[in-house]
């Protein structure tokens, strides 16, 4: 796993000292709120509905056991004993006090963590695939290029004051688990005909008020040129990006307005310039140094099938259900990828208590080489578990409320904090997710329904990725009352699509019934083996409109 070098270390410590000084001056009244607010935002500190909120960066979602233990401790000392994992693979603390934040950040720095690049108009924390390094069909560990980008973008003077925030995601398997086409830049690691590894580049994707799917700008950028290419995209954006209108300031609007063709032309022209200057070629020695951090661990030679594992599945039905939903094939025989659901029945998607963080950190230490990944679907992943350890791991998780067997099923929902916490919200998200979770809690029914992603956001900013949920729910405010607008057919995978609005919004009292009607309609219409999204793509929105609004 990547460890910060001395340079990073110094920067982070300097930043903590600087922020300590700024907080001190604010508390003494030497800085006004207007002066201080941009400074606190640069350090990931927001003022939310009930309190301050600190967003901690988890680069490409990878954490060590030591780091997760520290987050647990911070949750206890400075917060109310829990944290919230977000769709940006970050962790949010909901209740820190301003006066404590410098100490909190100093504690974080002891495990090489910080809150930089989690806010403001900079290149944000890079996100990636939680199966990095272990997926069977992966071309190369996507965290290598993610780390290169992290180093390049951190404190990059040219990119600290962009027209708007800027998000980059990387994925290295044909199955896209990082939603790269809804990011400002999406990078797909690919191999060309002559066997070289390089990058396919998507630009201009994004959710929010104006959802857009990224356009492919380049089929193959060679490794050595990746920073030069990204820098060229950033320059074109920086030159044109609309700073006068925050709703138009994202790169997606630029690409939409000038078109992918013109964007490509301008980026290519800039790229030629940057390359001529030459200094942005990625030094191979540096790349190798970073690569070494992500070198595959020494796996044991294990039989393809573990007899204890097979026996345990026969003997323990709940375990078998968990294996079915929550584990994925590993590229090394005898190992498995384990997903830990943070979506217990009726729970808050993404919430994790400090005690649970400690359990997961211990579990990772014991069973998965001391490493944890955070997923953009608000779950956790242990990427390197021996099949023969799965039963013991399951029992440990289950005993601590972490054994829910619902990954990829209807109750594995994404939900943003919404009006329960967020100052920008129009409506609550979490209670809707909770009610849906309770309505569909029967596991047999969930398997009968099959893969279905329900995503809920509390406002048009779309932190809950509602546009790309198979079923999307958007909270809206009508004269101080919460309503919920439903979209169908969204997807964030390799067939990314923005969902279609199905009709007038529902009240809080109606929304769960509406979801059930949609699910039942799908069950009636589906043909053999079709997932919800397949049926929707075949039949479109009309049959759902009919069943939903016929009785209204």
């Amino acid at each position, binding site marked *: 796993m990547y460890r910060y070098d001395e340079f990073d270390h110094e920067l982070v410590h300097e930043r903590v000292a600087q922020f300590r000084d700024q907080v001190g001056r604010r508390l003494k009244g030497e800085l006004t*709120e207007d002066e201080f607010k941009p400074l606190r935002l640069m350090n990931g500190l927001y*003022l939310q*509905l*009930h309190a301050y909120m600190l967003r901690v960066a988890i680069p490409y979602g990878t954490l060590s056991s030591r780091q997760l233990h520290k987050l647990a401790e911070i949750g206890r000392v400075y917060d109310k004993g829990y944290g919230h994992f977000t769709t940006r693979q970050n962790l949010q603390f909901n209740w820190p006090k301003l006066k404590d934040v410098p100490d909190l950040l100093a504690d974080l720095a002891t495990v090489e963590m910080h809150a930089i690049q989690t806010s403001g108009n900079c290149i944000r924390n890079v996100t990636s695939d939680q199966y990095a390094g272990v997926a069977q069909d992966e071309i190369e560990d996507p965290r290598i290029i993610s780390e290169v980008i992290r180093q390049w973008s951190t404190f990059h003077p040219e990119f600290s004051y962009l027209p708007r925030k800027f998000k980059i995601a990387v994925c290295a398997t044909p199955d896209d688990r990082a939603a790269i086409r809804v990011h400002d830049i999406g990078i797909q690691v690919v191999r060309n005909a002559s066997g070289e590894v390089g990058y396919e580049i998507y630009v201009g994707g994004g959710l929010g008020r104006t959802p857009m799917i990224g356009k492919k700008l380049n089929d193959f950028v060679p490794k050595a040129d990746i920073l030069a290419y990204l820098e060229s995209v950033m320059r074109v954006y920086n030159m044109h990006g609309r700073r006068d209108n925050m709703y138009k300031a994202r790169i997606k609007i630029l690409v939409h307005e000038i078109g992918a063709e013109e964007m490509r032309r301008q980026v290519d022209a800039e790229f030629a310039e940057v390359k001529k200057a030459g200094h942005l070629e990625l030094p191979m020695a540096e790349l190798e140094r970073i690569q070494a951090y992500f070198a595959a661990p020494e796996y044991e030679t294990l039989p393809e099938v573990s007899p204890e594992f097979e026996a345990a599945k026969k003997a323990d039905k709940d375990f078998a259900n968990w294996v079915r939903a929550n584990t994925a094939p590993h590229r090394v025989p005898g190992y498995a990828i384990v997903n830990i659901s943070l979506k217990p029945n009726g729970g808050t998607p993404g919430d994790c208590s400090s005690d649970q963080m400690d359990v997961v950190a211990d579990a990772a230490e014991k069973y998965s080489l001391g490493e944890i990944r955070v997923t953009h679907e608000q779950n956790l992943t242990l990427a390197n578990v021996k099949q023969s350890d799965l039963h013991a791991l399951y029992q440990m998780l289950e005993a601590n409320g972490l054994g829910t067997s619902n990954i990829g099923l209807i109750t594995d929902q994404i939900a943003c904090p919404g009006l*329960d916490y967020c100052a920008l919200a129009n409506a*609550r998200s979490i209670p809707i997710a909770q009610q849906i979770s309770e309505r569909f809690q029967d596991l047999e029914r969930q398997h009968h329904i099959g893969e279905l992603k329900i995503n809920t956001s509390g406002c048009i900013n779309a932190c809950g990725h509602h546009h790309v949920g198979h079923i999307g729910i958007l909270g809206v405010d009508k*004269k*101080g009352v919460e309503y919920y607008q439903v979209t169908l057919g969204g997807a964030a995978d390799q067939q990314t699509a923005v969902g279609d609005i199905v009709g007038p919004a529902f009240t809080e009292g109606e929304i769960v019934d509406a979801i059930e009607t949609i699910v039942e309609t799908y069950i009636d219409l589906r043909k053999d083996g079709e997932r919800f999204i397949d049926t929707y793509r075949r039949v479109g929105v009309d049959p759902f409109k009919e069943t939903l609004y016929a009785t209204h």
Partner: protein
Amino acid sequence: MAQHSRKGAKFQAVTASLLVEGLVVYLTANGDWSESLQDAAVAEGKEEGDALLARADAAVASNLVVEPYLFEVEPVEGGINASSVREQIRKAGPTVRLDLGKQAELG
């Protein structure tokens, strides 16, 4: 700061966040700040509302509170309530964590 009141709102109160803790507070009739909505001064009509909001300036200047604004309230039996769901949640705490926030602390 977004506007959280309604144009024709009859009754309004002023809320803000404490600088040091970030907690929600309400401006009281004698110019103090209370964590309980029931202590809030209620202004009737636009003029009284604007005057009440202006009284928050001193606390902003002295770095006690940040981001004060008016919001609509309505009289209920035994006190006042916030009109919007948003302000009802601010006054109480997360509806999904009844053990946290004012609903837990103020009883």
